[in-house]
């Protein structure tokens, strides 16, 4: 059952990813990104990380993508370019390096994943319902209190920065 869900979500996510990078229109890229995020949210649910999944939907899917779409619409850049313009060396570099990169990562990760097969029982147990929100909350406010506070500072700075940067200059 889980396997089926996983594969559905995985395939849709990959397809959406391809869509993001391959679409001519920026708006469509944004929408595909939305699909990608939702799939990921599903995958988080499969991991029993409900809080994170919800946050993913609210923030990423709900705020970030919307922000992207706003800006795209605002600037009118949906038809920014005719086609992805690839300089010759980018072609070559991309074709060489991309697969190389992927293979490299896979090669590194697979032994890790398969090597831990004996820990499958632990994995199974994790499927039992846990109080995700309580755990995260506890961790955030005790061990990770400082990063938590700092994150709020970062957000504050971002807000101010965004306002300052996007302000229309008063000429003259």
């Amino acid at each position: 059952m889980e396997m089926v869900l996983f594969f559905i979500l995985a395939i849709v996510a990959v397809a959406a990813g391809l869509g993001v990078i391959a679409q001519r229109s920026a708006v469509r890229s944004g929408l595909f990104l939305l699909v990608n995020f939702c799939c990921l949210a599903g995958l988080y649910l499969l991991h029993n990380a409900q809080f994170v999944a919800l946050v993913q939907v609210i923030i990423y899917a709900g705020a970030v993508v919307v922000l992207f779409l706003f800006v795209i619409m605002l600037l009118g850049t949906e038809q920014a370019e005719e086609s992805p313009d690839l300089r010759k060396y980018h072609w070559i570099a991309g074709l060489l390096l991309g697969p190389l990169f992927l293979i490299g990562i896979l090669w590194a990760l697979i032994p890790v994943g398969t090597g831990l097969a004996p820990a499958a029982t632990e994995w199974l147990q994790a499927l039992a319902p846990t109080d995700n929100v309580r755990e995260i909350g506890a961790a955030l406010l005790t061990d990770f209190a400082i990063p938590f506070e700092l994150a709020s500072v970062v957000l504050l700075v971002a807000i101010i920065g965004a306002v300052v940067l996007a302000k229309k200059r008063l000429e003259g």
Partner: protein
Amino acid sequence: MVPPSFYLILSAILFTLGAAGVLFRRNALVMFMSVEMMLNAVNLTLITYSRLLANVEGQVFVLLVMAVAAAEVAVGLAIVVAYYRHKETADVDEMDLLKW
């Protein structure tokens, strides 16, 4: 029951797709979206490991990553908007003022 390696493979693929998007697209906004995809791929990896190691710290890390990503998107888009106002373009290849 899905072996963890599957999630990791998926994460790797999404990351590569995001990297490709960054390299191959000229539209600044699409590049941004690709960067977000890369971040998400990493988030997936972190969640996977969090579950694997039965440690909630991974998920906390993901939350913080999301916070930072959100901030980064806000600022980055503000920059793009500001630039667009001056140059009427969001084409990255034309933003080459910082050259020699």
